[in-house]
Structure formats: C-alpha cells, structure tokens
C-alpha cells in the first residue's frame, strides 16, 4: 500500500512536465488610441507567427492575453504588468511600444520570475533595467548611426540635425552627431522641435539659412511626418539639393501613401522594410497581411512581434514549459536565426538584437510606394548601449 502511494506520489511530482498544459503570454501594447495601428501590428506579427508555426510548442499550448495601453503611461503599464503576472498567471511578457512603459514594467520581472520580450520600445537603456529583458526591435542609435556613413559617402561635409524634442529624438541626434563627427563631417547646427509642431515652414527656412548640404531629421512615425515632408518640398529644399536623411520612422509603409511623391528618392536607414526581398519575408508578409486585414497597414512593429514570438518559443522549448525566467533568458543569449528582416542574433552581452541596417530609398513600384533597400550595413549592434 505504502509502495503504491509512493509510486503515485512520484508520478504526480514528475508528470507536471509531461502533461500538456497552457502557457500564457501577456502582451501589453497600444491596441486603441492614436497609436492603435502599431498595436494592431503587434497583433498581426503574433497572429502571423501562430499561423505559420501553430499554437503548440511540444506538449504546451500557447495562449495570448492582451492588455491595452493606449498612450505612454508608466503607472498604468506597471499595473497591467502586475495584473498579468498575478491574476492571469502569465509566464512571459511581451509587447511594450513606448520606452517609459517598458521601463516601468522592468522592475517587476525578477520578483515575478517572468522574462520580458520587448517588441518595440527603442531606447538603449531598457535592456539595463532588468536582466530578464530581451529586445527584438531596434534602437534609435542602431538605425541612425549608419546614416553618417551614408552622408559621408555622398560627399556631404556640412549637415544640420532637426529632431523632435523627446527621448528617441535626442538619441537620434546624438547618434548622428557622434558618428558624423567621427567620420570627419561637420554638424553646423542641431535643432530640437517641440513634439506638437505642425507648421514646419519656419524650420525649413532655418535649414536653408544654415548653409548645410544635408539635413538629418527624426520624427516619430505618424501625422507630423506628412507636414514635415511637405514643408521640405514646398519651401524648395528638395529642389535646392539639400539632401534629407532620416531613420525609417519617417517613412513607415502605412504613411508612404500619404507622403506620396514628396517622399520619392528620400534616403532612410532602418532595420526592416516590408518590401525586403527574401523567402522568409514573403511568407511573413503573406501571413501578417492576412492577420491585419489590409496589407497596406503592415509596418515595422509586426516584425518585432513576429521575431519576439520566435524568441519566446525558444524559451519555452529550453525550459520545458517550466516557469524559470533566468534559464529562459540564458537559453536565448546568442540565439541566431533568419528573420523576415534578414540574419539576426541576440547579443549575449545586452540581450538586444544584432541585425542588418539597410539604406533604403523611397521608390514607386507597380503604383505603390515602397522603401527600396539599396545598401546593407551588416550585423549592427547597438552603438548607444553602455554597460551598466
């Protein structure tokens, strides 16, 4: 009798792994509000990954639990994260569109024994906020730095920077100024514009007056980019040959329709273009377009989410479905794979994604505007990251 009891006890103790169970992944993102397009792209990336790979990993079924965070709101982000861990019992956290949201949630991870895979938030310091943060998007430093080399290759000696006055804008400015100065160029002026600027004519006049041959600009993806591009053309800067250089936020694919001919020929550097030519990307775009409903709405956060799901699946495989954040993160350090954006890997030192940065030109193909990749900067790490 006692033997039987022991045997059943032993079976009960060991079988927790063998039994099929459900692993919950909590996703925090802007699913409503002004940035809902980016939230829908998170969702499209996740759905595309599930459509291609199925919702089971080994014996485990994945369940996604969404939480809506319409605008950058650190307190609400921390509250939602806590709620996901405590009452939903999620084993993994993912998403996070804005830096402050990711920063606010990071301190909870160790206590909750939950890894976080950042799908978007692009400030270098986030990975330092907790050892359980892994990021599959990009940093503004990473996408802005190669632009300095592009400018120098085109014989530009004097440049001016114009950025939106907030964290990522300042990052972009510092990254470009550092790299451009290092390559022997001169930044004649650096201007930070208030976030809610809508008339960019005065700014264009100032660029003209500065005598710069090129202007490096950073604006967040969204309505302001339209006014900026229009002012650039209408104030005659394009005709005067003042080259506009920018990270790809300025020309995300859903905005290109509106930017139209004004943006033609514009050079941007970024980690992902929907038009990237590879079989992996073709499969991704097909699945993600189906998930989002309209292929024209597809943008870069979708690929961050798709790759994030891959990383989480590897974490689940490595831990056999057990909740062990340290082992899960350890397992993906150095992980390398072919993403829809090209070859990528997780840098073991800072858990940020190492990837190609592409120089793209806005071009028209089959009546659609695309970011056409024309040059590749291979295996770029995050130049803005400083060891804590």
């Amino acid at each position, binding site marked *: 009798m006692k033997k039987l009891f022991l045997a059943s006890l032993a079976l009960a103790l060991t079988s927790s792994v063998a039994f099929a169970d459900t692993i919950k992944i909590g996703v925090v993102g802007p699913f409503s509000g002004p940035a809902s*397009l980016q939230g829908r792209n998170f969702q499209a990336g996740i759905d595309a990954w599930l459509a291609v790979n199925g919702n089971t990993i080994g014996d485990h079924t994945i369940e996604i639990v969404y939480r809506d965070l319409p605008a950058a709101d650190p307190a609400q982000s921390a509250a939602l994260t806590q709620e996901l861990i405590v009452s939903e019992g999620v084993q993994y956290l993912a998403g996070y569109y804005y830096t402050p949201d990711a920063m606010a949630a990071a301190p909870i991870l160790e206590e909750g024994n939950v890894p976080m895979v950042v799908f978007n938030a692009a400030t270098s310091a986030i990975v330092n906020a907790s050892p359980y943060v892994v990021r599959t998007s990009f940093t503004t430093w990473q996408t802005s730095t190669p632009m300095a080399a592009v400018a120098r290759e085109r014989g530009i000696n004097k440049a001016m920077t114009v950025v939106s006055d907030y964290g990522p804008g300042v990052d972009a400015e510092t990254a470009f100024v550092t790299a451009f100065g290092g390559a022997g160029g001169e930044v004649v002026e650096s*201007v930070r*514009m208030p976030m809610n600027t809508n008339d960019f004519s005065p700014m264009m006049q100032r660029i003209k007056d500065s005598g710069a041959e090129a202007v490096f600009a950073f604006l967040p993806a969204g309505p302001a980019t339209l006014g900026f591009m229009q002012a650039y053309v209408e*104030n005659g800067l394009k005709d005067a040959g003042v080259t506009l250089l920018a990270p790809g936020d300025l020309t995300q694919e859903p905005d290109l329709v509106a930017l139209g001919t004004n943006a033609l020929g514009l050079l941007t550097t970024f980690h992902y273009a929907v038009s990237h030519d590879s079989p992996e990307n073709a499969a991704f775009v097909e699945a993600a377009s189906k998930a989002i409903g309209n292929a*024209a709405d597809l943008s870069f956060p979708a690929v961050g989410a798709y790759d994030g799901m891959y990383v989480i699946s590897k974490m689940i495989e490595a831990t056999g479905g057990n909740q062990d954040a340290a082992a899960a993160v350890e397992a993906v350090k150095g992980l390398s794979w072919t993403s829809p954006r090209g070859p990528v890997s997780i840098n073991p030192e800072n858990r940020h994604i190492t990837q190609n940065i592409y120089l793209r030109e806005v071009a028209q193909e089959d009546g659609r505007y695309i970011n056409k990749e024309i040059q590749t900067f291979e295996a770029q790490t995050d130049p803005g990251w400083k060891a804590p």
Partner: protein
Amino acid sequence: MQTILSIAADSLAYGMVLFVISIGLSVTMGLMKVVNLAHGAFAMIGGYVASYATQQMGLPFGIAVIAAIVCTVLVAIPLERLLYRRIYGAPELTQVLMSIGITFAIIGIANFVMGPTLKTIALPEQLQGPVDLGFRSIAAHKLFAVAVGIVVAGGLWLLVERTPFGVRLRAAVDDAAMAEALGVKTKAVYAISFALAIGLAALGGVVGAQLLPIEPYYALHYMVTFLVVVSVGGAGSIAGALAASLILGLVQTTARYLAPEYGEFFFYLAVIAIVCTFPNGLLGRSK
C-alpha cells in the same frame, strides 16, 4: 530683412489657417453660447469627405470642398435636432460633457470606417508647389488659405452685421424670449447658425488639412488650439478671431524660427498676457 519678410509671410499663412478653422467655433461659442468641443470632429469629417472625394472618387478639388461642407452639415443636422437642441442654454459643464462625448464617438467611428492612417486631400495643380514671392517662395495652398480666410471674414461680417438674418441672430442671442415675442423664429435661426458654424468647421478642416493632417485623433489634437484662438479673440467676434489668429500665428512662427527649443513657451506666454489684459478676449463683449 529677408528673414523678417520670410517670417511675416509664414505667420500670415499660418494665422489665416488658424482663423479659417477656428471661426466656426467662435460662432457657436459666442453667438449661440454653446461650448461645442466637437468642433474639431466636424472639421475632421469635412477633411475625410474631401479626401475620399478627391482620392477615391477622383472628383475635382472645388466639388470636393462643396461636398465636404454639405456632407458635414447633413451629418450635423440630426445631431442638432436630437442632441444639441437640448443643451442650448444649459450649464457649460453639461455642454462640455456632451460635446466631448460626441467627439469620442466620432473618433471611434472614423477609426473604424477610415482606418488609423493619415489621409490627404489631392490638390489641383494650381495649388501645388511653390509660388515665387520675389524674396522667397511660399506654398500655393497657403496663399489659397489666406484668400479663403479673407473671403470668410468679409462674408461673415456682412452676414451678421448687414443682413436681416444677422439682425435676427443678434436679437435671438441677446434675448431669446423677447426676440421670439417679436416674431423671430429663434429655433430656425439657431438651426441655420449651427449649420453655418459646422459648414465653416468643414471648410477649415479641408483648407487646413495641409498643415493639420486628417487622422482619427485630429478631433482632439487641435481642439486646444481652436479654443485658445476663440478665447484670445473673444467668443463671437469675427474681427477678434482674425486678430487673435494673426497675433498668435506671428508669435508661434517667430518662436519656431528663432527659438524652437522653447517649444510652445512663447505661444502660451502671449495667450496669458492677452487674456490677463483682456479677460473677455481682444474684442469680446463683457458678460
């Protein structure tokens, strides 16, 4: 000198866009005493209609402008009959709460129907590209906005000050009961003025769309700017709104050129200074 002229040209253009887009709100707030926070939402509907007409249906710009005004007014008529009519003369808080509710509903519907992305209005060739002013070039659509501003200001002034309808409107605003006793159909007067204000909102949405692009959150984004113009100018005063738009446009543009790192500092400094000196706005009537 070059710089001063250049700033002046940009200021005039920006100020006129502010005027065209805010004057409708000034009419509702000043003449009809309704704090209509859904003003931006109606401007947005106008913008969407014009965008759809020019981009999807390929209609010429002129027809699209008329279609935008007509469609927006058609949307507004049932809202006026069912909702706004109940809050005429109601406490301001009631008006604010209801109109902000309408705004959120319109944002949700716009997001669902038109999608979250930016929408542009196709301009006719004459309004595209720069026009050479001699000392600098300026976008043609900005000159168009200046022209529309002048026409709207003149037309409204004539309507309110020089026509029988204007007399009835002013009477209905000053003392509704007395006006009604004297045979003025105040309900009809209100309905027409409301339609006029909404039409102006739609026109502003279309003309201003090059600076304030059309997207679902348009309705909220620029509401503060419109309210500032109205309160600085004095609610209900056409000349006041014009003066406020031009002054604020000048301050904003100069600050953006000379000291962009100060953000909106000088803009709001000017607002505070003006409102402290003129509590009812530049040309507003005391309550």
